[in-house]
């Protein structure tokens, strides 16, 4: 069931440039388990949209099936949402994106949805460079069917019943870099400070942006032997640096040390400021980024932060040379060639 939240606002709630409060970006009451990482991600999405002054009705939220795919109901109530079929959100988002390139597309998926049943669609949405933010709320487990392993779970990690996972994981982030995604970040649902700038950066990026967010399942995969638990991620998280989102027209904070920070321009002119912790890491070099992720993996670390970015990407609509006017708004006068041309076609066929 979905339950609406009460609409009473506290009169002193902070407003953004649109005069909206954070409450205006909320959705229905979540029906996920208390403490679910997915709810923290929804909160971070709400915060990001609030800060970016996004008009919610110009956002389309799409998802597949699973716990993660329920999440779009819990943020941006004024946005159209589409809870499609299992693993097939990328194709629906692709068609929607071609129909109206003026909206912002948020795809919300999980590890079962993207790394198993929908792996093919995940891959091809990246290959086509669909302009969207693709959230993987990654908990390494099938929550809705009660705790089976998913394809992102680590080898020999145990489930709630103490059974070993027998297969190696699929790493969606490294896969996305290899496939040519132009914005790839990994984060942790429990690290709000890191997550929000990464989401804001992704929202302003043109092209396919992947956010692989480790989001512990409190019910089925948050025990001592899990590698996707709150404790495990807190202990093994290593950030590639501190990322800050700098809106259009603002100076990058001087708190970054000279030489250690990288400035990355986004589609609308706003910037991502990245304070690097390791001189070997460069998020604009896919090869180095992949090596660095693997090195850290060998050390037993989960690398988080902005892993890769290419700010010169060409999205699907540009590749297909589609008109700037949303296709959905084209009227009959430009769509229908009319009877005179049909007569000519008839002539050519006789």
């Amino acid at each position: 069931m979905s339950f609406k939240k009460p609409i009473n606002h506290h009169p002193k709630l902070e407003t953004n440039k649109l005069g909206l409060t954070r409450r205006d970006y909320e959705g229905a009451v979540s029906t996920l388990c208390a403490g679910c990482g997915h709810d923290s991600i929804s909160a971070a999405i709400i915060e990001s949209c609030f800060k970016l002054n996004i008009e919610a009705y110009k956002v389309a939220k799409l998802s597949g099936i699973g716990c993660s795919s329920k999440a779009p109901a819990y943020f941006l109530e004024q946005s159209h949402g589409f809870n499609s079929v299992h693993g097939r959100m990328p194709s629906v988002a692709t068609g929607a994106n071609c129909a109206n390139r003026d909206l912002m597309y948020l795809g919300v998926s999980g590890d079962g949805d993207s790394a198993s049943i929908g792996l093919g669609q995940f891959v091809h949405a990246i290959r086509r460079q669909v302009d969207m933010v693709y959230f993987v709320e990654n908990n390494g487990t099938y929550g809705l069917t009660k705790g089976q392993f998913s394809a992102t779970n680590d080898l020999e990690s145990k489930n709630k019943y103490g059974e070993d996972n027998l297969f190696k994981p699929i790493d969606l982030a490294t896969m996305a870099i290899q496939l040519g995604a132009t914005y790839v970040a990994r984060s942790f649902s429990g690290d709000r400070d890191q997550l929000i700038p990464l989401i804001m950066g992704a929202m302003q990026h043109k092209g396919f942006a992947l956010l692989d967010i480790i989001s512990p399942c409190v019910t089925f995969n948050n025990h001592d032997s899990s590698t996707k638990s709150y404790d495990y991620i807190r202990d093994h998280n290593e950030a590639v640096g501190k990322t800050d989102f700098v809106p259009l027209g603002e100076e990058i904070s001087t708190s970054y040390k000279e030489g250690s920070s990288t400035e990355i321009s986004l589609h609308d002119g706003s910037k991502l400021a990245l304070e690097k912790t390791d001189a070997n890491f460069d998020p604009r070099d896919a090869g180095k980024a992949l090596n660095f992720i693997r090195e850290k993996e060998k050390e037993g670390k989960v690398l988080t932060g902005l892993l890769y970015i290419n700010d010169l990407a060409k999205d699907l609509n540009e590749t297909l040379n589609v008109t700037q006017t949303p296709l959905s708004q084209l009227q009959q006068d430009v769509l229908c060639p009319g009877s005179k041309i049909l007569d000519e076609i008839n002539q050519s066929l006789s």
Partner: protein
Amino acid sequence: MHEVKSIESIQSTNDFVIKFANVNGSGSASANQMFAKAMFRMGIPVSPKNIFPSNIQGLPTWFEVRVNEKGYLGSRGGVDIAVAMNPQSYFKDVDEILPGGYLLYDSTWKRNFNRKDITVIEIPLTQLCVEAFKNPKQRPLFKNIAYVGALSVLLDIEYEVLEKIISEQFVKKPALIEPNLKALDLGRNYVLENLPYPLGITVSRADKLEDKILISGNEAAGLGAVYGGATFCSWYPITPSTSLAEGYEKYAKKFRIENNTGKNLFASVQAEDELAAIGMAIGANWNGARGFTATSGPGISLMSEFLGLAYFAEIPLVLFNVQRGGPSTGMPTRTQQSDVLACAYASHGDTKHVVLFPSDPKECFDFSAQAFDLADQLQTPIFVVSDLDMGMNDWVCDKFKWDDEYKYNRGKVLNKEDLDEIENFGRYLDIDNDGICYRTYPGTHPEKGAFFTRGTSHDEYARYTEDGEVNAATLSRLMKKFRTASELVPEPVIEINGEDSCGVIFYGSTSPAVHEAKDILKEKEINIDLMQIRSFPFNLDVWEFIANHDRIYVVEQNRDSQMRTLIMAEGGISPEILRPLVHFTGDPIQASYIVNKISEREVNYKSHINAKKR
């Protein structure tokens, strides 16, 4: 060098079947099509059929052309003239020639065919081309043109007609006109100098095709989609539907380019599979564009889950199914009508879909354009179901027409101003009591009209619900919508031919064979009333026709008589009234087959009735 004839050669004008036997990938298709086009240009009804293997190069392929001044254009059976260019299939090709028929073969390598009852025409085509053309790559291609040239003398085809077709065909590569004409003359001159001509079979200009065109159903449907306002196409390559998406792209690239920018007023995406193809089309329609996908049987199986979503979440969609031989991978390059039930009831749970059944390329064009209106009006998937025979072969049909006064019907869509007036928007409120609710496109209004599209059970406000009564009400409303659909879809075409006639129900590509059978049966004093079903759900005319007949043959190209099952199930019609008349070899049904089946059973029926009377 005719062999001694032991029986009379076939004599006819504008009435024969010629079959070209070639090697796949040898460039024969364009030469054979040139022959068919020449018949058309001389005003003689013609039906070319490409009978090809699921192969790119090397296997035998045939091109059968029926020429019939009376306009009977279904498959006829039997071959009057064989042009045998493939030694691999000589045995079968020669065997099919009717007594008195003719065989033309490449006598560079001589053969004895052991048929005393046919006329063998020997032309050393390879040798002629080797002598005339230097480029070894061109020789086999020009060999094909050369036999068309030879046929032009043998059958008395107007030379100017062929000359014009060649110059049109190579309008963009004018350098090729001269060598093609040379090849044509090579064949012509050989016959003129060495062989008796014309044959007993000849052609003669007729004026039967004034308002007709020659086009394949797929190209027609692709053009219909452009006219119907489709801006989005997503598809996955599959025989025999691929040329439909290609047809759409071809015409869109011509007529859908933005004036100042040169940008496309459409998008076409070749998907990674059929699941993605339909998913994209659903996404585009959800977002307010007219989108479609084109596929064949295996694709329908793969798309089934998404079809249930579009049905239940009420998203418009147009889906073309160009049927081929099933089940499974089946016969990908042969024709059948065996997806009727798979389309009508596609997907799990209680689902029913609107299906249109065009019977020629003209209807492919009309129904394609109309399907986009129906999809928007009914907010549901609309299937346009044709088949390989109609989809991939060029058929003679009426010229396309378009009424410039006609306005697209985008259905019940609320814009910003509408929403301003509305207090309480509910996506699934049946305000007009026709089962069709009001939708909004994403991005319409800052505060109103947003909703959550879902495949889960939902209430009138699109909220998730597990209330069984609410879900049952949704399912019932969808049935109400389906009844509304029966008033909007194309009605059947009914032809009553006398009292006490038996009925014949048919649909799709069996139309030419059924109409020819009707005339033949009439000569045998068996009158049949015809009903061409053009859509599902069935409307009242369908039920009335059935009620007025005590015996009806349902002609279709599948094993299980699927349309009959659909009619029985939907109308509670007794199985005794509806009699299956099925053909499922993958070859198009022939009039003679229908005639035999009906006359045999009608004779039995009449003797049974007479016995009763006694």
